[in-house]
């Protein structure tokens, strides 16, 4: 059997597969890249060939135009592909639209790279699929036992209760443009909120893309097209950077809220000066991370991209081999 280190290894450009001659989520331009999903720290411009799900390729084209890779090769979930004798397959990661885990296999050794993932249901993308493997490369954004995301429905209920209690204020919710915005919109619609929702201009293109992929987000309007007074009692979605921006002066008495896994820690919420922190995350929390490694029970777990130490400690305590990959270039922000 091939040693896992010979199938996939960390390099300064990211995880590299020597026999297949490709990188996964490389942080620098490379000849051939497999991209797990469209977030900016995973999908970078300037590669030669890019292999990803059709939705991820769409997202990359939207965000980087011509820089989204010279050659773009779509691969659907579940389809197999042979790259120089390495078997490659993508499986849903449940993170955002198009997000995939990458399973690479050769000579009886299978490694699954999770990319970013979560286990709870998300109306905007297919659910995480557990793929048995010898080595599981796990993300670790929220890999501390203090990150325990509550049920989404509770957080959405909190937002709707606040809108009832402060009907004269405009609720301004900070959301990441890819994934979080659309998931929050879909969750609000599921909860029965059917009024128009107002968007910051930076969010519209991605919402349109989701709709083209068949995801219903209800009636959306642009803040820029709306009079200030008409926004009282309304919900506005904006990128997090706009929460304290001068842009907010066009809103009537905005009540700043923020939907992110980081909102589970009070100091982080206070740093953002939000009045209504909503703990809604597109990443696995501690319980999901540990349940997943328990369920897959790989011989070995490699941890990357976040708080590696705690998850490595946990896996070793379970008798698994575990190590931190210390890859650089991935940021924690789009959480």
């Amino acid at each position, binding site marked *: 059997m091939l040693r896992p280190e010979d199938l996939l290894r960390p390099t300064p450009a990211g995880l590299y597969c020597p026999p297949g001659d490709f990188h996964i989520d490389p942080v620098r331009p490379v000849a051939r890249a497999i991209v797990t999903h469209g977030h900016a720290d995973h999908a970078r411009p300037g590669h030669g060939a890019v292999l990803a799900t059709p939705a991820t390729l769409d997202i990359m084209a939207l965000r980087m135009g011509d820089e989204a890779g010279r050659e773009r090769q779509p691969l659907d979930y579940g389809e197999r592909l042979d790259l120089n004798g390495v078997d490659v397959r993508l499986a849903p990661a449940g993170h955002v639209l198009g997000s995939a885990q990458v399973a690479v296999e050769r000579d009886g050794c299978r490694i699954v790279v999770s990319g970013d993932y979560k286990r709870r249901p998300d109306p905007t993308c297919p659910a995480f699929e557990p793929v048995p493997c010898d080595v599981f490369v796990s993300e670790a954004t929220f890999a*501390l*036992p*203090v*990150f*325990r995301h*509550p049920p989404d429905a509770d957080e959405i209920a909190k937002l709707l209760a*606040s809108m009832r*209690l*402060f009907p004269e204020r405009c609720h301004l919710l900070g959301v990441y443009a890819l994934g979080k915005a659309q998931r929050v919109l879909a969750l609000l619609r599921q909860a029965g909120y059917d009024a128009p929702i107002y968007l910051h201009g930076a969010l519209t293109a991605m919402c349109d893309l989701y709709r083209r992929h068949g995801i219903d987000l209800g009636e959306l309007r642009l803040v820029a097209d709306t009079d200030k007074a008409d926004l009282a009692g309304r919900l506005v979605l904006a990128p997090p950077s706009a929460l*304290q*921006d*001068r*842009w*907010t*002066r066009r809103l009537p*008495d905005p009540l*700043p809220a923020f939907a992110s896994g980081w909102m*589970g*820690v*009070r*100091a982080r*919420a*206070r*740093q953002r*000066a*939000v*009045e*209504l*922190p909503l703990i809604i995350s597109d990443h696995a929390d501690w319980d999901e991370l540990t349940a997943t490694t328990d369920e897959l029970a790989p011989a070995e777990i490699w941890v990357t991209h976040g*708080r590696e*130490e*705690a998850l490595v*400690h*946990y896996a070793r*305590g379970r008798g698994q081999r575990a190590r931190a990959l210390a890859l650089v270039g991935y940021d924690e922000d789009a959480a």
Partner: protein
Amino acid sequence: MKAFAGLLDRLSFQPQRLGKLRLIEDYFAATPDPDRGYALAAMTRGLTFRHAKPALIRGLVAERVDPVLFELSYDYVGDLAETVALIWPAPADAAAPPPSLAEVVTRLRDAGKAELPGLLAGWLDALDVTGRWALIKLMTGGLRIGVSARLAKTAFAGFGGLSVDEVEEVWHGQAPPYAALFAWAEGRGDRPAVRAAGGFRPVMLAQPLDEAELSGLDPSAYLAEWKWDGIRVQLSAGDGVVRLYSRTGEDIGGGFPDLLSAVDFGAVLDGELLVIRDHAVAPFADLQKRLNRKTVSGKLQREFPVGVRLYDILFDAGDDLRERPLGDRRNRLEAWFAARRPAGFDLSPLVPFDDWPALADLRRAPPVDGVEGLMLKRRDSAYVAGRPKGPWFKWKRDPLLADAVLMYAQRGHGKRSSYYSDYTFGVWRGNELVPVGKAYFGFTDAELVELDRWVRNHTTNRFGPVREVSRGLVLEVAFDGVQRSGRHKSGLALRFPRISRIRWDKPAAEADVIEALLSHLPGA
């Protein structure tokens, strides 16, 4: 407990007073007795039970959580209560339903020390993250949610359509869970009786004097007193009960045993708490040494002897004098005082004057220390709660002024969160600027927009929500005094600083030097 925890959670992130009031009122409307009553008690610091020590909580979590994971987590979160709330491994099949707030409070009140760990662990198992966080805050005695007792009572009054002064008046006869108060607020019961002895009577406050109106006032209709630079207190005593209240009705007597132990009379008196040495009022900084203490050492009592300078009498024994005109009450106060001369108390003298210009001269140059200005009170004024317009005026001395240079600006809160609205300013010490204070009001909304723009265009450095700016803008700062302080590099602190003017025209090099401020130190 769930509703209470949700309330604390939202309050802890809510900077605006009106927002806090709305959250609390909503909670009172949605929560049944007795939970809401215990919540009111928690917010007014009216609960007494054995507090859990942080060590107990650490011990419980250590039995359940891997020590390496706990340390990594505590390190990241930084707060013990929060770390434990988040990390607590609740059993998947919760054995018991989460406790109500009433259950928590009453069981803690009756629990012996040995029962605490079991109680706490059982509740932590049954609650969710926010519930655990609130429980630990409650049990360790530090809610820290930015809600004063006064604010909680104001919310209660708003909930019942009452005035907060009515609530204050009956408050001290009531006890958690305040069933009678809630019945009254909801129109299901009568107004509770006012406790006769030791109760708080809502205080009467003065309006600031608009000097332009002075010529329209008849000097002979008013009594003048000095406005002392201490804190307003109410002493309420009778039937062996002695209480000292702040003007918002907070019982502050615990820090002043020296004053209260000698009280053997029955009366409700209005006066100023001061540090007094040889009949002279000491600087406010001395009084600060005695404030906000639960207990006080003998040494502190000797070094900073407190007294109350009396200016009004509300009750003499059981006799309610509040409806009588001030002139009568003053006579009664003077006779009362002459007959007793209680240790630790003296009389605030009247300031005789013939006309307004003569009084203005006295205000400009008071003959005694410790004076902030003058009080003008109509001779015929009854003692009414709140801040009625007309009967009482405060006429403060003109503020001191300094030209200071803007050094740092910080983002405001709530409505001001998109503005740099908190300003730290300094004065020159030799060639360097040293910060002397911080101010966040005194300017108009239009000026705020200009200040914000100036800050953004002159930023030289950023630290989180703070921007350092180039030394180019002079602010005229008004303040009420200067005291020594270890908090600022300058060793000085300004009292009650506010921006009085923006000196767009003035070069920074011409701002004030520190010696100008030093000259305002008491005794300088």
